[in-house]
């Protein structure tokens, strides 16, 4: 592509911090189909970056490449000054990259609390022998994990549901639960896949409130979202993909008046 490596529309000297995630010429194809085509972009530390684009633009593929569920066909993913292109998804969480799923994936036949308590890394009791033999040490660790899990559940307003089976809570609550699980790992960058999709407006407001609160505390977010209203109100900067390429990068205000973007969206209406 002729704009390989070029970053579109970014205002120079943005107030955000240094890039925490850098994509360098990332491509991903499925057979002959190129879903993501040499995408290069930076996600600035401390931002809530919105990733938009019409259906089939390659958003989810790009998201999965960043999250580690798909390996890039070409290019590099650099997170926090570390090349994580070859990292399996489980190593990315340890590196400080948390993600949620478009269709929530709670551990259904486990309590909400257990779902959250699972997440911390390096739990001594996760070894088979330690689990049976080192019970005193694990008990102390469990108490600490439990305390923190309840605090995080309290933060995402799910504390009253701690003892419920996670499969029995609403879809919106599942999204909050996924956020809670991810927060247990204290990631630097949180990837949210359509956080507002299929969630009732009241819970969406709760979720947005939590995202902005976390953002003020220094967490960076990369959010894929179909709901343009959501993106325009809460995300800055906004990155747009179409046919696997970055077609726009800039502020929400710029996005709303960008002719290329309008054309893409008018040409292929978004189903929110």
């Amino acid at each position: 592509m002729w704009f390989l490596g070029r970053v579109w529309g970014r205002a120079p000297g943005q107030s955000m911090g240094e890039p925490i995630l850098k994509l360098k010429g990332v491509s991903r194809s499925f057979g002959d189909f190129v879903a993501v085509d040499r995408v290069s972009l930076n996600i600035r530390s401390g931002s809530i970056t919105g990733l938009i684009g019409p259906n089939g633009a390659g958003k989810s593929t790009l998201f999965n490449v960043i999250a580690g569920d798909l390996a890039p066909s070409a290019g590099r993913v650099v997170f926090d000054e570390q090349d994580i292109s070859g990292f399996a998804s489980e190593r990315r969480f340890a590196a400080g990259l948390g993600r949620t799923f478009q269709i929530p994936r709670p551990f259904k036949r486990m309590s909400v609390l257990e779902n959250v308590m699972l997440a911390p890394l390096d739990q001594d009791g996760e070894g088979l022998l330690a689990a049976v033999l080192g019970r005193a040490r694990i008990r102390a660790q469990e108490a600490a994990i439990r305390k923190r899990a309840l605090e995080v559940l309290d933060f995402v307003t799910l504390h009253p549901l701690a003892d419920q089976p996670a499969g029995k809570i609403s879809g919106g609550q599942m999204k909050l639960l996924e956020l809670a699980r991810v927060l247990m790992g204290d990631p630097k960058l949180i990837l949210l896949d359509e956080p507002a999709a299929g969630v009732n407006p009241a819970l969406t407001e709760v979720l947005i409130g939590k995202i902005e609160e976390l953002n003020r505390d220094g967490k960076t977010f990369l959010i894929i979202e179909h709901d343009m209203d959501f993106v325009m109100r809460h995300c800055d900067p906004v990155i747009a993909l179409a046919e696997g390429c970055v077609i726009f990068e800039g502020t929400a205000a710029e996005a709303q008046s960008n002719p290329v973007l309008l054309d893409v969206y008018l040409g292929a209406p978004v189903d929110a």
Partner: protein
Amino acid sequence: MIGFISYLVFFSTVAAILAIAVLGLNLQWGNTGLFNGGIVASFGAGAYGTLILGGTPQDGHLGGFELFYPLALAGGMAFAGGLAWVVGRLTLRLRHDYLAIATFGVAVAFENVMRNATGVTGGAQGIRGFERPLQNLLGSGFSYNLVFLVAVLAFLALVYVFLERLTVSPFGRLLRAIREDETAARSLGKSPDRVRLAAFVTGSVIIGLAGGLYGTFYAFVSPQDVLPILTFQIWAMLIVGGAGNNRGAMAGAFLIWGAWTFSGWALSRFAPVEAQLYTGSIQFVLIGMVIVGMLLWRPQGLFPERLVVSQPGVDTGNKQRD
């Protein structure tokens, strides 16, 4: 009366041995979601291993190492664990029904090897010449069987306590998470492959213990003891009892073994003469119906899995407000 008690002891011994195997399967399926269709391979490995290591020298097959009994039993368990490790490394990337097919195939292969590797396993004749531990002290009558039952129940209790501890530990939580959603577990930094293998091998070692005790009890094992029907029986026990619930698994073992024994007796007693030849097959049909019926009408089993809170008894600071 003495006859009845004696039979009850015999029945309980076999049921308790099978209950150990069901607990092993519960770790694999109930907790981790591993569809092991080859239970008899672990069971047989434990039985053959124990008898070969602990037996007296025989012409015609391997064995006669006359090891101290606990060592022989541990050897049988290690054999089952080693086999499971190899099988696990090869097949655990498979999911669900594919894993079941692969492990079922391994079990059938195991039976065929036992049947045909005559020089090692005694072939269709099986392993003979095993002397049960403490037999010269206790004789081989009722008192021996009673002591053996107590020993088996002690093993059952030990395995139960071990697994209950495991279930409430972070390791148990990890198993359940992998059972529920491997992708989500991966996204939270967990490595499902390592954990699945650990659960598969541990469950197989426990099933191998059951096999070792079974071989010890009969002082004999042959390919007839490792037929696929045993896999289905053990599955029926877990499904009826309640996958994910260790107490349910044990209850299911006694229930199904009781039903199996009773149906065999009832068929031989009441079935018309021309059907007598087929009582075994009728039992197979019955056990299949029990499995299907349970899955249709009460898939959670008689004793459903309880939601585990990792430290039971600690108040979460709120009552359910719904």
